[in-house]
Each structure stands twice: as C-alpha cells, then as structure tokens.
C-alpha cells in the first residue's frame, strides 16, 4: 500500500462491487436446477484458479503480503503522533526552538520540563529540555502550539522501555547536525496545511 492510499481516510469514496446474489429457489425443480447449475458451472475451479494465481503473484511477482516486522516497517501516516523530534533550521543548523515555553504550558499531562537562559548574544537558549515519556499521552498539543515547528511528532512508534518512566533529553530528540540534510519538513500534526495559502486573508491594515 502506498502512502497516498494510506492517508486517504475518506470512507465511501472507494468503488464497491456489489455481489450478484440470486434468489433462493422455492420449488424443488428450482432447487434441482440450482444443484445442476452449480455442478456444471465450475465455480469451484474458479476458486482453485484464484488461489493458484495469488500464489504465482506472491512468489514470482513480488506481491507477498508479509512484512517481516522488526526488519521491515510499513510507512505510517505523517499525522501519526509518536516520539517527538526536535528540528533544526536548515540554513544555519541551529535548533529551531526559541524557548518560548508554550509546549511546557500547554502540556496537559505535565510531562515537558524546560529551562532557558540568555546566551552571550542575548539570545534565548534552551538550557534544559526533557519529556517524560512515561506520562506523555501523545496528544500532539505541543506540536500544534509550537510557533516554529520546532517540536514535532516523529515516526518512532516503538516506545517500549525497560524503565517505568523514560525521559528523553533535548539532544536525544534533536536532529543530529550531520544528518541535517536528511531532515524532512514535517507535514503532520500542527503543520501548515497544504492549502494554507488559499486560506490566508490579507490583513486589513486600516486599523
């Protein structure tokens, strides 16, 4: 399944096929006719052919359905809310977080803890940032409220841990500086919608 199909959640747009169900025969002659028809029609062989065709497809046309899970993974929707990622600015490589503290404020399970200070350039700098994943309910408010798209939800959904409460530090979630080129712009929860330009109205400057 491609990612596009996966993202399509509009149930009812698919083209359903209606089965041609005939009426149950009432008379005994009709029943006999049904038996004869089913005997001669060879529908059973159609069934045999279908399974054989699927076996051929699976073996020779690479149409196998199995995902060897720990080795292979299915693509997940960009709107999926898993372990957070901290993104960097692509130009400078500096982290995007401006230390506004909105995520800490909005967090309904109180699992984000951050501390900021002014650095030598009088810029705000994040001195400490942790998320308690033992408490996090992955509601996505932090990603939605973030004005800079700095904290986003990533795709790492395997959250089993040896500890009851597992904390993540800012550096664990931050895109590594040497992997900056692989950093993908986030189009999931809280991100600008694809048709954002159409929805923006000009600000009336008169007032």
């Amino acid at each position, binding site marked *: 399944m491609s990612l596009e199909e996966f993202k399509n959640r509009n149930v009812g747009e698919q083209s359903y096929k209606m089965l041609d169900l005939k009426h149950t025969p009432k008379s005994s002659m009709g029943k006999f006719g049904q*038996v004869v028809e089913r005997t001669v029609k060879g529908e*059973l062989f159609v*069934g*045999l052919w*279908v*399974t*054989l065709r*699927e*076996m051929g*497809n*699976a*073996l020779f046309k690479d*149409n*196998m*359905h*199995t995902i*060897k899970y720990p080795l292979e993974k299915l693509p997940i929707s960009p709107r999926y809310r898993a372990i957070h990622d901290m993104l960097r600015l692509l130009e400078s490589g500096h982290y995007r977080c401006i230390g506004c503290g909105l995520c800490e404020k909005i967090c309904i399970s109180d699992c984000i803890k951050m501390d900021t200070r002014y650095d030598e350039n009088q810029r705000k700098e994040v001195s400490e940032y942790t998320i308690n994943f033992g408490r996090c309910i992955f509601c996505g408010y932090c990603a939605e409220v973030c004005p800079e798209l700095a904290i986003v939800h990533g795709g790492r959904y395997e959250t089993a841990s040896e500890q009851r409460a597992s904390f993540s530090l800012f550096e664990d979630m931050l895109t590594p500086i040497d992997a900056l080129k692989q950093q993908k712009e986030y189009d999931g929860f809280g991100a600008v919608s694809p048709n954002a330009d159409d929805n923006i109205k000009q600000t009336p400057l008169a007032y």
Partner: protein
Amino acid sequence: MEATVLPEVTSLGVIIKAIIILAIISAVAGFGTYIERKILAFMQRRLGPMHVGPFGLLQIAADGIKLFTQEDIIPQNANKFIFQIAPAITAATAFIALAAVPVFPDFTIPEFIPLLGGTFVPSIAADINVGILFILGMMASGLYGPLLAGMAQANKWGIIGSARTAIQFLSYEVVTGLSILAPIMLVGSLSLVDFNEYQAGGIGSWLIWQQPVAFVLFLIAGFAETNRTPFDLLEHEAEVISGYATEYSGMRWGMFFIGEYANMITVAILASVMFLGGYNDLGFIAGWFIIIGKIAFFFFLMLWVRASWPHIRPDQLMWLCWKVLMPLAMINILITAIVVMI
C-alpha cells in the same frame, strides 16, 4: 500373467521394504506439515515458516522436538486406557494400510552393498489378492482412532468430534466402495499390482479415461476419508475447537497428525495407481519418478483445495454423499457392467 520370472520374495526383502515404507512415509509425513504450511502461506500471500533454518526448512525439527518434549497430559475423568491407545490406532492403521500399497517398483539391492546385497525388494510389502479391500478396510478402521479418542476424553468438543466422525464415516464409505467397484470390474482383480499392469500401455490406457466419474467420486471420498477440507468436520477449529484432538498434547497428538498425513499419502498413491497409470514407465521417464510426481500432485491438490474452498456442514456432507454421489456411483457401475457384458 507369468511371463516374466521374478526373483523370489524373501522375508528379508519384505522387512527391508517395510522399513523403507516406515522411514520414508513418516519422514514425508513430517515434511508434509512443512509443505502444507508453506503452500497455504503462499496461496494466502504469506511467507510461512521462515526463521528456523534456510526458508524455515528446519521447522520440522523444531516441531518434532517440541512434540517429543511436551508434557503428556491425560485429563481428569478421561478413560485412561482408551485415551492412550487411540492415537496409536490412527497411526498404526495408516501404516498397515500402506503394507498392501505398491509404493515404488521392484528393485534388487546391488551386490556391492555388504550383508544386504542381492536381496530382491518387492514393490509391495504384502501382495495379498484382496489388496484394495484390505487398504480401504484398514483406512476405515483408522477412524476408530478419532472415534475412541473423542469419547474417551471427558470433553464436550471431543464428543462432538466423535459424533462427526461417525457421521462422516457413514457418509463417504459407501461412495468409496461403490466408486472403485467399476474400475475393479474392468481390471478383474483387487490387487494394485494388476491395476498397474492393466495400465502399462502409456497414457491412453490410463483408467481415468475409461472411468472419469469413478475417479472424481473416489477423489471426493478420499478427501472425506483423510479429513481434508472441504470435509474436515472432525477437527474444524472454528466450530469444535479441535474436535477429537482437543485434549491431546505432545506425541499423542503428533501420532494423530502422522496418521492423517500417512493417510493422505495412501489416498494419493491409490488415486495415482488406480486411475493415473501407476508406476509404469512413461516414455523415457522412469516409473519411480512418475509415481512420485503423481503422488506429489495429489498431495498438492489436497493443500490447494484446503486453501481455496470453504468446508461444508455435516448434514451437507451426508446430503452430498447419499443423494448425489451414491446414485452417480450406482449409475456408473450399471453402465460399466453393461459395457463389460457386451
């Protein structure tokens, strides 16, 4: 008939044949579970066993170790003695039936092999003159296994399983007997060796061309005889947990399984010897290779059908056997008899 002088069949040869049958069939029965899981998986676009050995080939070993080391539980309130011997009935009768089945052509062990060199190994362990009757009787008595097993365990699913065994037995056994009566009339013998010789003249002399109806009927009855889908009423998990095998564990359960697979192979051999020309050479292809190919085809057919078709209700099986298949078999016998008389 006595044109070719065959070497004398010694008891040593028969013993060797028996060991070959036991070793090969039980190994193949074990391997059959792997093949079944793989083919079913492929037909459902899955991978099947993959992790034990290359392509999961050692899965049989893993399963075997598991079965052998599992605790042998005998449930409370069960009839202990019958509960214990019931799996042995299934496994033993399956192998006894194979005694009268020609599995491979005759051969003589080469002289250079010490001790056994020069021993003539017959194609059939016991060439009794009622061969087919013996085989069918043995396979039918194999159903005492599920019947007793289900009744010996104090479990309602087991009881339902044995009731279904009785229903199935009452349904298909008539069809099995009547369907092969017509080819028996044509050949004039109950021995499978005679069947094989009757069809020695290439593909054109195969009995399937003269008896297509009997072939189809026998195949349907064979599926019922081996409890394969679409007639796997005895242990259909969705309805009766595991039927007669619900309370079984470990090697006793494994014996049921080996018996079932040995029966599948027996039916495959019977169908290929009686209707598809047996182990005769086909042009330049050797007979032993041909018969393995035919047996493999029938084995595959059973798995293929299991992957494709839904199974039917007990009353539908009875309806099918008594109201459709038995009249067809009778008509087939009548027509064959008239043709033979003329």
